[in-house]
């Protein structure tokens, strides 16, 4: 389990409503308002994008919106920093390949 259910100092994390969203077409669940990257992490998604030149995987690196490594396509818009963009119910999140969506075989 990736989520911390109880913490010795902080107790139980405060979370929003459990909502569903889509990751490369697949339904997933996360808490509304938490960063998209956190919901993905909880679901075990490590790769957020593949780089343009070398097609190398990238994921969360700085987690504070600075390094821009975790960018993905969110509701059709590329280069969205998922570590600081709150999750909204029904969001369509896609792995980014260069600056476009990664083609995912169903």
């Amino acid at each position, binding site marked *: 389990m990736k989520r911390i259910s109880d*913490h*010795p100092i902080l107790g139980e994390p405060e979370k929003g409503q459990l909502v569903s969203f889509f990751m490369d077409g697949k339904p997933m669940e996360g808490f509304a308002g938490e*960063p998209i990257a956190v919901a993905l992490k*909880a679901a075990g998604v490590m790769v957020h994008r593949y780089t343009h030149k070398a097609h190398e995987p990238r994921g969360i*690196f700085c*987690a504070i919106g600075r390094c821009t490594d975790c960018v993905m396509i969110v509701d059709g818009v590329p280069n969205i920093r998922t570590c600081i963009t709150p999750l909204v119910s029904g969001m369509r999140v896609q792995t980014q390949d260069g600056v476009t969506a990664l083609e995912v075989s169903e």
Partner: protein
Amino acid sequence: MKRYDLIVVGAGPAGLSAAIEAARCGMKVAVFDENAKPGGQLFKQIHKFFGSKEHQAKIRGYKIGETLLAEADEAGVEVFLNATVAGIYLDKEVLVQIGEAMTHFKADTIIISTGAAENMVTFDGWTLPGVIGAGAAQTMMNLHGIKPGQRVLMLGSGNVGLVVSFQLMQAGCEVVALVDAAPRIGGYGVHAAKIARCGVPFYLSHTITKADGTDCVTGVTIAEFDEHFAPIPGTQKHFDVDTICLAVGLSPMSQLLKMAGCTMVDDPKRGGQVPLVSENGETSIPGLFAAGDVSGIEEASSAMIGGRMSGLAAAAYLGFLSESDKEKRLADLEVALNSLHQGMFAPGSKGKTVAKTDEGIAVSQSLLKKGYLEDTDLERFVHRSNQTDKNSGIHPVIECTQNIPCNPCQDACTKGCIKVGKTITALPQIDDASSCTGCGMCIAACSGQAIFLVDEDYAPGFASITLPYEFLPLPQKGEQGTALSRSGQPLGIAEIIDVRNAKAFDHTPLVTIKVPAGQAMTARFYQPTTQAMEQ
């Protein structure tokens, strides 16, 4: 144009402190922060702070953040969140993205307190998902309640690396090793000791040579380096990990100041590009100040004082505070700041090797290289450790051996057992004449978790040791587990004879274990049996 007396950029410890002081002087103050939550790094700091009472010592960072916010609110400071400053222009104009729009603001004074950014190191595979900054780990676990990974290797033994390693364990992650290219541990020995006694090995003069994995990290190789930074053959070690955490220092995030046209200097002692500032943080542009890490990397306690100083200076600059009041109040703050700037971790001591404490005691080399005190170090440091003839029941053992600015233990003991004195970087002394009641307040007050209550003759052949235990699940009275040494080595069976979790301890439960009398000065941690089996 919306105009304020003062615009503060960054709602971290420095920015909020500055805003509070300025607003209390009667200024109209706006604070902009790009994050959804204010407080900067404070809300990721779940450990108890060092310093003295005036520095809010023994209070956890996030609590200090809550206090600052309440104070800012009370003082009438307007805090704008999700408000990203795009740039600072001529005439102290600030362009801010708030929501889906840009808004222009002007101010007669500006304080930049944008904090710091993490440094990075490169190695083969450092771009793989699973390699993260230590700040990222803190953000994930302490703000968003998610583990960065299950098995983590930490690179960097400065205070950030040490503190985050401990936090990772608190969050339920396993820290497999702590690695640093330097030959000595950079952070406080007490932070290192907390980790070492959990069994985490330290590898100094080592660095990462490769992160393995195709789509994410699956392992890491480290190696010892010679003086030319070349790996020494045969010293490679491999760990199966899913996360590599980098804590290799911070750099001031000073771009806004540079854009504003402030004279900048590159000062390695302050972490990189910093503005040229006066004592109160005023830059080369009159009325524009810098406070906190952006003007030189330190810790939050200093940032809060620096923030307050620049807030007062800004108030005086605009006539909201008389020069004489300014001088007086700044002088007090100067004293508070200076008290933090003493001892072996003072900014002036950066990069120096300190061989002896201020008291003239040789520093433990084991602590610097392995993260824990050797038994042979104890005689020099631990009061009463060799006075078994005098033991008369429970008494504190303070394993605090470096001159760090901290004194809550002194205030915590109502019996006057513990003395630090006026200089808060002095090593605490135990007054034998005073009688310890075993209340445990000193343990809970010690930000370094370096105080233990020992009773050598708890029962015939057995000693009791009371230790801080900030982990879950909390052991239950009567259960049996393993006593661990300072280096995390199993010593034998330990029985839990008491668990106390008073509100006054502030989430530092005190666990008392019963161990054979011979382990009174060696057993320093407790491992539940279930955990030992899992490993």
